[in-house]
């Protein structure tokens, strides 16, 4: 009896002690690991993140260099989410992505406005507007009902990139991408704005006014092309790699692919005057309908339209920026390095400018059908 009585509390105390010690140790451990300090700083960091504007932009464009002016004013960089495909971006915005500023092509603005995801932009709050090329101050679709819905940031061309050592052709033409001599070594843009538009040019159809008959004609051209293709892609990195290795010898691409390959010393050419016409486009920014940080949204737009951003955009990303002063302050050598002429604006003026397609739903469906066909 006595032994039991003494041993029982003894054991209990020992157990209790062990538990107590371990808990104390645990707290000490937490303290030494700095968890408590980290936990204390958490609310602060969340608050900080909430203050910054939320930018929804295409992958490859979200560089800090474009946010310099914004960061100076707001003490931090924007929160950035990336999209890879404009239709996917629209889908996410429609299902409630809480972004403030969105990047898109001018050809998409109308559609985005119809979907009710963007709000008009106040031109009076755009501090760098007068520095822009006059030609991009007014492009199709950016204004509607007397209001401005989109502002330009950059523009560029879509044409045919080819390996000068692996293909030959008589005249510059989109038909190179239908040339059976290069079956299995061609690639096409995986979107309607560039891919279907290029096929329409090849089929001698105006890409922006297609009716059912024209859509059928373009579909036939794309079905004819499909067996010759190695891939449909919008990924310029995948395309550059495939072209550098010779896996692909010709592809529809924007001039950044050309610039990337040229920089690597790959023998490539870029058709500046395909006989059916070169595609030109402008990319820019919109403000979400329910933007919570409107002031910062304008700060960000101004920052991305600024001369500093423009110099970075043009010389590093490889597309001409909308800011004419930025373009003017780059040297000929810097422009040559990314394959841009001094009078870049004549390019935009000569080409077929990408705008909203008629019957866009049917066009999109047609393209999906082509890709799904056997």
């Amino acid at each position, binding site marked *: 009896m006595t032994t039991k009585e003494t041993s029982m509390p003894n054991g209990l105390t020992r157990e209790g002690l062990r538990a107590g010690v371990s808990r104390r140790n645990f707290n000490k451990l937490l303290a030494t690991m700095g968890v408590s300090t980290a936990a204390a700083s958490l609310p602060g960091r969340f608050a900080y993140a909430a203050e910054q504007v939320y930018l929804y932009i295409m992958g490859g464009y979200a560089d800090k260099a474009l946010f310099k002016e914004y960061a100076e004013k707001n003490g931090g960089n924007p929160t950035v989410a990336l999209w890879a495909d404009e239709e996917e971006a629209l889908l996410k915005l429609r299902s409630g992505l809480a972004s403030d500023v969105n990047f898109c092509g001018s050809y998409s603005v109308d559609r985005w406005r119809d979907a009710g995801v963007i709000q008009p932009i106040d031109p009076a709050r755009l501090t760098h507007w007068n520095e822009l090329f006059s030609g991009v101050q007014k492009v199709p679709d950016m204004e509607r009902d007397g209001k401005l819905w989109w502002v330009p940031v950059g523009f560029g061309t879509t044409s045919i990139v080819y390996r000068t050592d692996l293909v030959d052709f008589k005249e510059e033409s989109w038909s190179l991408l239908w040339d059976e001599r290069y079956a299995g070594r061609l690639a096409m843009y995986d979107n309607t704005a560039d891919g279907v538009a290029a096929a329409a040019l090849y089929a001698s159809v105006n890409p922006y006014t297609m009716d059912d008959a024209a859509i059928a004609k373009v579909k036939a051209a794309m079905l004819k092309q499909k067996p010759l*293709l190695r891939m449909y892609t919008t990924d310029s990195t995948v395309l550059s790699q495939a072209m550098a290795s010779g896996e692909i010898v010709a592809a529809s691409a924007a001039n950044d692919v050309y610039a990337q390959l040229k920089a690597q010393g790959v023998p490539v050419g870029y058709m500046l005057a395909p006989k059916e016409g070169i595609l030109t486009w402008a990319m820019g920014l919109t403000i979400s309908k329910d933007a919570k940080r409107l002031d910062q949204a304008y700060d960000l737009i101004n920052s991305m339209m600024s001369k500093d951003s423009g110099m970075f955009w043009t010389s590093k990303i490889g597309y001409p920026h909308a800011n004419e002063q930025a373009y003017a302050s780059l040297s000929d050598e810097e422009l040559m390095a990314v394959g841009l002429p001094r009078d870049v604006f004549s390019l935009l003026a000569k080409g077929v400018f990408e705008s909203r397609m008629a019957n866009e739903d049917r066009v999109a469906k047609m393209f999906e059908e082509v890709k799904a066909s056997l």
Partner: protein
Amino acid sequence: MKPIPIIRDWLRGYALIAPAILFAAVFLCVPLLLTVALSFWTQNGFSLDMSPTLKNYTTFIDYQGSPIYLTLLWRSLLISAIATLGVLLLAYPAAYFIAFGVKKRKYIWIILITIPFWTSYLLRIFSWKIILGYNGVINSSLMQLHIIDKPLEFILYNPTAVTVTLAHAWAAYAILPIYVSLEKIDRSLLEASIDLGDSPAGRLWRIVLPLSMPGTIAAALFVFIPTVGDYVTPNLVGGPSGIMIGNIIQSLLGKGNDAPMAAAAAICTMLSVAFVATGPVLLARLLRKHR
């Protein structure tokens, strides 16, 4: 002493599974019913026309005179079936080895099997791109050995590449259930068959294979069901000719902007997968009855 209140067994049973049922009802049944409802509606620009119609289903069977959806569904079932077969052929020997060949520290082998799963699925697909690529591992080794003088183009961006990638990516899902069912086999049965003079092949055929059937069938279903609807793999290694029904559903929801058609396609896919998958399940039940 207070009498312990008697809770009826069935009530206690339901109380225990209530959270699971609630979860399934909210996150499985409701979305499924919504998908079914959606499939009878029509997309109208950015809005939905809710008057019920069978149009989406007739489109699935016959799209402007061509059975494009059915063909893709068939291709997806075929790719998944071949991939599943490949997985089983690869997984069975591995599981057999761990169950019967490894005597000590089996857990190390199990962990080794799961190691590829510590990296993301996307990374595994990308590594297959590197292996099968134009100047990838296979092509450059064959060129270095002077077996070929220019890279083989048919090994990437086609249905074969999708099948190969799927077969590798899902192997661990098959090894584990097969291993468990092999591990459970009563070793005295094997000893008895040896004593009675059965050959090793006969032993495998008469004892091991039938007794491990439940695990093998489970493995086949684990691989077959999710791969039919896969769209990431065909997107990355399938090229223009390797797309599957999952890609169509995804593009209908995204670029195609036709959610009701996507819902109809998803339901048809679900039904056909269920149809194909119940075959093995019925087979397993039949085998269990025979034992």
